[in-house]
């Protein structure tokens, strides 16, 4: 395992310390590193709290700030954070408008946030994201995973909360954005969980994992490495197929790198995905290309499509000032 760390026991704490020091104008680290919160809170606003296992940086702490989250709870690498973290975060950022948990659909995350919601003193609602269409037979599993689409939910609901939407409205909007969002990804190489010290899976030099999860979970199947056009076609087929009749009109296209794939390749994927979507009558009205929801140093990428309407587009365009996403301020 080759990583820029001092040890597997300190990687998380040092990384959080560094993150909060580098972005001290935006964020503050909570006690015992239980959460990362905005440096400045807005009285009365609904407080958005997310979190999940670490290793997906910049998700979620990189999206704490004006126009997005109020706090993020970092778990151990690939392990859900614990209810004490969520309780501490909620207590720190709740400003009288209630708390909205934004949770990626993994049993660990869902159960831990659920326990926190049960134990919390104030009003709490929860949006669970589940945009990963790689999981085909969701009746026979715990359902679709929440992946890169979570960032779009956080951005859009964050803007609505900033604009004064109340807790129920934020929850409804979050559910609506999630329902209009689909993702799927592929991996070229494995990630290595620091504490495990060895790759989570192995792929031959000519293989890729189609439909991989952001923890390196296996996807639909292992296939021979394909050209970018073929990968884009299969991912967009899965996404558009699942959206069905909704896949018409304006969309956000997010091409998300998993950590080890450079921008050059992401833009190649963007170009191929764009062509596929336009063939199907989807117009790319907004684009985001970069490394946002990662799986440590895994090479690969995911495509995410969110079907826009006027409200979602307006909130997407609204100012945002976080460590990893910033515009108009």
């Amino acid at each position, binding site marked *: 395992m080759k990583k820029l760390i001092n040890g597997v026991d300190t990687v998380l704490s040092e990384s959080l310390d560094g993150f909060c020091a580098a972005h001290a104008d935006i964020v503050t680290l909570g006690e015992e590193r239980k959460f990362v919160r905005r440096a400045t809170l807005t009285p009365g606003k609904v407080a958005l709290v997310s979190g999940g296992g670490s290793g997906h940086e910049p998700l979620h702490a990189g999206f704490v700030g004006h126009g997005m989250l109020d706090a993020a709870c970092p778990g151990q690498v690939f392990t*859900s954070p614990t209810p004490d973290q969520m309780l501490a975060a909620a207590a720190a950022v709740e400003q009288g408008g209630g708390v909205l948990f934004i949770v990626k659909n993994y049993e660990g995350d869902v159960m831990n946030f*659920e326990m926190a919601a049960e134990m919390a003193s104030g009003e709490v609602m929860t949006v669970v994201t589940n945009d990963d269409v790689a999981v085909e037979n969701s009746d026979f599993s715990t359902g679709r995973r929440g992946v890169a689409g979570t960032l779009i939910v956080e951005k859009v609901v964050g803007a609505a909360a900033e604009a004064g939407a109340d807790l129920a409205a934020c929850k409804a909007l979050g559910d609506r954005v999630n329902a209009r969002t689909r993702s799927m990804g592929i991996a070229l190489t494995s990630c290595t*969980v620091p504490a*495990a010290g060895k790759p989570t899976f192995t792929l031959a030099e000519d293989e890729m994992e189609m439909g991989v999860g952001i923890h390196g979970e296996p996807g639909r199947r292992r296939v021979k490495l394909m050209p970018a056009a073929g990968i884009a076609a299969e991912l967009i087929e899965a996404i558009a197929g699942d959206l069905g009749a909704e896949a018409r009109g304006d969309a956000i296209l997010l091409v998300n790198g998993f950590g080890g794939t450079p921008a050059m390749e992401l833009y190649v994927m963007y170009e191929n995905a764009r062509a596929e979507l336009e063939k199907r009558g989807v117009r790319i009205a907004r684009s985001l290309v970069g490394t946002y929801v990662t799986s440590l140093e895994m090479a690969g990428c995911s495509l995410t499509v969110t079907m826009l309407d006027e409200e979602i587009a307006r909130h997407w365009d609204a100012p945002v000032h976080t460590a990893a996403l910033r515009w108009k301020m």
Partner: protein
Amino acid sequence: MAMTDVGEAAITALATAMAEAMFAHAGELTDLDQAIGDGDHGLNMKRGFEAVMAELPAIAAKPLPEALKAAGMQLVMKVGGASGPLYGTLFMTLGKEIGPAPDRQELAAALAAAIAAVKARGKSDTGQKTMLDVLAPVQAALAAGASIGEIRAVAGEAADATVPMRATKGRASFLGERSIGHMDPGARSSQLLVEAVCGVLGGGR
């Protein structure tokens, strides 16, 4: 089984045996989880039982029900992942349902309630290739009056029986057919915990 209060020494022995089992098998549990999950189960259980051990003097000083609740709360607050709330719920519910000096019947009833609480928390049931597939048969054997040796054997067979199962809960469910052929890591950790308890209660292996 204990008919007088389960005291500090017994609680310490039980907790220590469980913790040591988790520490000794952390690598194995992680390997199992790498095959069909996300490769952290061993680390999660280790972290949780480290937290229990760090609090052990305080925990063991309590009456059994309170000790179980406190240990469960440690697991909830420190493990994270799916197994944290589930094992936490298991121990916290055991603590709620049990008296300070349980007999076999009381223990079996408390374990049944705890398993039901795990099912509710996990929206799951037996047959889905999870820890429940070890916990439930162990509870049944306990209720049916099985010996410690028999219970230990039931736990081992139950863990083995998860190998051919297809997972429909937990991360392994994302694998569909591909989850077949691997032992469920949570089933294995449950088996190890049962074995640890049996070891203390039966005196050695």
